[in-house]
C-alpha cells in the first residue's frame, strides 16, 4: 500500500536525496526521478517541474556539474555529476538529518 506523506516533509530533503543518487553514479533527470521512485518504494515521486529548477540551481552554485552525452538514437542527454563541494554539502545534510530524525524519534518515544 502506498502511503501519502506530507509534501513539506519531502521538499526539504529533496536536494539531499538527489545528491545521494549522484554520489553513486552520474545520472540524467528522468533517470533520477525513476531511481528515486524505485528506491523510496514510490514514496518520493518527484515532478520534473520541481527537479530541473533544482538541478539548474545546484549547478549554478557549483554543487553539481553537467555534461551531454549523445546516444545511438541521436538523442542528447544531459548528465549531472556531483562535485567536491556537493559531496561536502551532502555530508552536512546527512548529519543534519541524523540530528533531526533522532530528535523526532526521541520525542515520539519519550
Amino acid at each position: 500500500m502506498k502511503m501519502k506523506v506530507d509534501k513539506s516533509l519531502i521538499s526539504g530533503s529533496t536536494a539531499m536525496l538527489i545528491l545521494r543518487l549522484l554520489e553513486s553514479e552520474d545520472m540524467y533527470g528522468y533517470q533520477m526521478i525513476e531511481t528515486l521512485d524505485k528506491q523510496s518504494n514510490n514514496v518520493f515521486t518527484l515532478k520534473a517541474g520541481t527537479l530541473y529548477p533544482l538541478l539548474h540551481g545546484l549547478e549554478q552554485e557549483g554543487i553539481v556539474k553537467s555534461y551531454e552525452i549523445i546516444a545511438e538514437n541521436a538523442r542528447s542527454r544531459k548528465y549531472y555529476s556531483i562535485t567536491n563541494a556537493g559531496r561536502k554539502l551532502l555530508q552536512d545534510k546527512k548529519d543534519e538529518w541524523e540530528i533531526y530524525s533522532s530528535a523526532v524519534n526521541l520525542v515520539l518515544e519519550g
Partner: protein
Amino acid sequence: MAQSIQVREFIQTVCEQVKAKRAHAIITNELIAHIEDQTEAYMKSGMDENSAERRAIAQMGDPVTVGENLDQLHRPKLDWIGIVVNIVMWTISGAVMLFGLFLGVATFYSLWTTGQLVFGIIISLGFIAVSLIVAFTVISMFKFISNMLFYRGLASDYKKRKKRGEYYGKY
C-alpha cells in the same frame, strides 16, 4: 524527431517565463528529452503514443510555474547595448541643449571666442557622460528599474497573467 504541437506548446509556455533568451535552448532540449523518456515509459506500459505523450506532459507540472522557477535561476545579463545607447542619446540631447544655451549666452554677452565655446561644450559632454555612467550603474543595481531598461519584465508579466486567466485590464 519532430515535436508534436502539445509538446511544443508546453515548452513555449515554459520558455516564455524565462527572460534570459540564451537559456531557452538548454531548457528546451532537456525538457523535451525528459518528455520523450516519459512518453516511452508510458507506451511500454501499454498506452498509445498520443495519450502517453499527453500524460507525460501533464506529469511535468504547470508550465508557468516551471518557467517561473527556471526564470529565477537564469537571470539575463545586463543589457549593455541598451545602456550604452541610452548614455549616447542622453549625452547628445544634453549637448544640444547646452549648445543652445551657450550660443544664447555668447550672443547676448559677446564674451566667448569660438575656441572657448567649443572647449566648454566638450568639457560639458565629458561631465554628462561620466555622470550618466555612474547613474546607470547605480540604477541597474535595483532590479525593478533595470528590468524596465529593456521593458521585457512588464510584457512577460502581462502574458503570464493572461495565460492564467487573470484579467489584467487595459495594458
